[in-house]
């Protein structure tokens, strides 16, 4: 069937691109509109007089830059720890026989479906008592729990495909078991770990419910939460263009990751079901 690309596919191609990118282009365009323009109403798609003021303003806004640091820090730490724990668990699930394996997988699945909102109340109460409210660990711990299922399932799927016999083969060839692990298994497992890390990072970067419920200042507030409280220079008008600018800035890491690792993400999302 390859090579038979009809007009309908060209059309489909164009529709998909417009569908996916139009809102992104719109928010970028909005970020170049001046505050005066949005305050007086600016329904046209492109800015009348493009300006970089919003970017200058927002990077000076210490609340926003704090939130950006929080977002990066919390997401990266949660991703790192979650992937480490998930790697251990996924290795056991893919390689070892032990009681309760099915239970662990079912538990992970159940937690992936858990309604996060039903936890905010008790978590808020608990975090208040143990002084984790409005701290980095206060978000990192729940983020880890909710990304673990994703990471475990993704990694287990990857690990099952690794030809573990090669490790023994290398040992037979005279490598120590550490060498065999490092030279043979790590390179095979790394892409899987990496994919799990990307998906985990996306989750933590995107998370909103816990971020607004378990933080109250810029000490721990992440970008999505900060954006929902965003106040522009005019306290009585929603700062459309500044919110758009903040949106563009938090989307940049997403776009960079997507550009660099699109194949990995697709493979991870569909659990190795897509060829390529």
């Amino acid at each position: 069937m390859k090579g038979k690309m009809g007009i309908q596919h060209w059309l489909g191609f164009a529709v998909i691109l417009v569908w996916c990118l139009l809102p992104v282009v719109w928010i970028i365009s909005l970020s170049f509109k001046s505050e005066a323009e949005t305050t007086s109403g600016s329904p046209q798609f492109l800015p009348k007089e493009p300006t970089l003021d919003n970017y200058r303003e927002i990077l000076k806004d210490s609340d926003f830059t704090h939130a950006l640091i929080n977002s990066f820090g919390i997401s990266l730490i949660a991703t790192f720890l979650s992937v480490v724990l998930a790697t251990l668990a996924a290795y056991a699930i893919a390689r070892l026989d032990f009681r309760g394996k099915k239970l662990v997988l079912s538990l992970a699945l159940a937690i992936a479906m858990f309604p996060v909102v039903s936890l905010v109340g008790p978590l808020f109460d608990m975090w208040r008592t143990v002084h984790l409210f409005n701290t980095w660990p206060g978000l990192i711990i729940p983020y880890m729990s909710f990304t673990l299922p994703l990471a475990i399932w993704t990694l287990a799927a990857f690990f099952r495909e690794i030809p573990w016999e090669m490790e023994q083969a290398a040992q037979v060839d005279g490598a120590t078991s550490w060498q065999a692990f490092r030279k043979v298994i790590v390179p095979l497992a790394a892409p899987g770990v990496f994919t799990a890390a990307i998906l985990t990072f996306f989750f933590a970067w995107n998370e909103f419910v816990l971020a607004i419920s378990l933080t109250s200042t810029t000490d721990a507030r992440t970008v999505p939460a900060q954006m929902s409280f965003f106040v522009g220079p005019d306290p009585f008008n929603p700062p459309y263009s500044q919110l758009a600018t903040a949106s563009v800035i938090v989307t940049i890491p997403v776009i960079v990751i997507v550009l660099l690792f699109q194949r990995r993400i697709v493979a991870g999302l569909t659990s190795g079901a897509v060829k390529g």
Partner: protein
Amino acid sequence: MRERAQRRRRRRPAAASLILAAAAASGVLAACSGPASDELVWYINPDTGGQAAIAKRCSTDEYTIKVQELPQAADQQRIQLARRLAAGDPAIDLMSLDPPFTAEFADAGYLADLPEDLVTKLRAQSLKGSVTAATWNGKLVVAPFWTNTQILWYRKSFAKKAGLNMTKPVTWDQIIQAADKNGGRVGVQANKYEGYAIWINALIAGAGGTLLTNAEKGADATITIDSPAGKAAAKVIQTLAHSKAAQPDLSVSQEGQVLAPFQSDRGAFQVNWTFVYGTYAGSPTAKDLGWAMYPRTEADKPARPPLGGIGIGVNSHSEKVGKAMKAVACITSPENQGIYASTDGNMPASAEGYKQPELTKKYPADLLALFQESVNAAAPRPATPYWSDVSSAIQSSWHPPSAVNEGTPAKSQKFIEDVLQGRRLL
């Protein structure tokens, strides 16, 4: 499968270690230090920088005041603060509090007692309306800093075209009719938010009614919204919502959304806070901008304009209550009130503040006089620890404005009672 494995092998594992390194590096940033002992942390509502400037001016050798900004919406400010105060968090020293939540915070014991001499001074300097807004159970619990009120802003050219005499008190009916007949619009706050409850409270008070009485009984307060005054208020909202004078985005309109339409060809009236004058300063609208007392709900009863503003409270769990009280005295001095009003458009809580030269230079004398008259005539929202429930309950039974009718006050009364008794979800 073999093919896939090979393809994977070509991937560089280096990228993974990059993330790990970044994670480790950012771990360092996670270590946060608490506030220094000579630092007072003041949680402020967002403004255009005036409170930060006051913080700088009021900092002394003994302590520096650092500001932390709260979210924009009043109910969000309450949530952010109450959650931390309930946790006994000492990292808050001073707070800029919106009047409706003062009672709740005071009742829950979150606020430190103001010292006797400061109370005496504040009572002496503050406007009557400002004191009312800062009082719970007969006690002054926060220091009035600035006091807001709404007046009727109008386009002089439009009032002339419509033949409306603006030197006499006008009623809601009059301005809605005038706008409706002459292609103008009346800007109000009718989004589902605190501002809508403010409007409803003002309308009811303007008809001689109240939302509730016996507020000190807490959840057992007597709800009085189902009254002739409540019906009169519903009538005004109903009339506006179904007339051509309503903005098309009436049901989501807040203070900011009414500013731009007012400048357009159809701009006619808006009820809004004192900051409006500063917003239009320098724009073509400025010359055409007129102001008058808040509209009357009923022709024979005086208008009871909305009252807002900020009182400064001190966290009872603060470890620096003594220093914080000194800071309160400085922040709320008439001089700082006047400067703040001139820079941010938020009017003083004291007559002395209104006399500050910075302010009188910038604002017309008759406007400043109107603001003070409006504050003293204003009807504050009832002081009750349950205000947020009452307000939310009003918002859900009166929103959207186009659905308001004669039966709304009765429905709303039942709903508020049920909510306060825990019989209904809010």
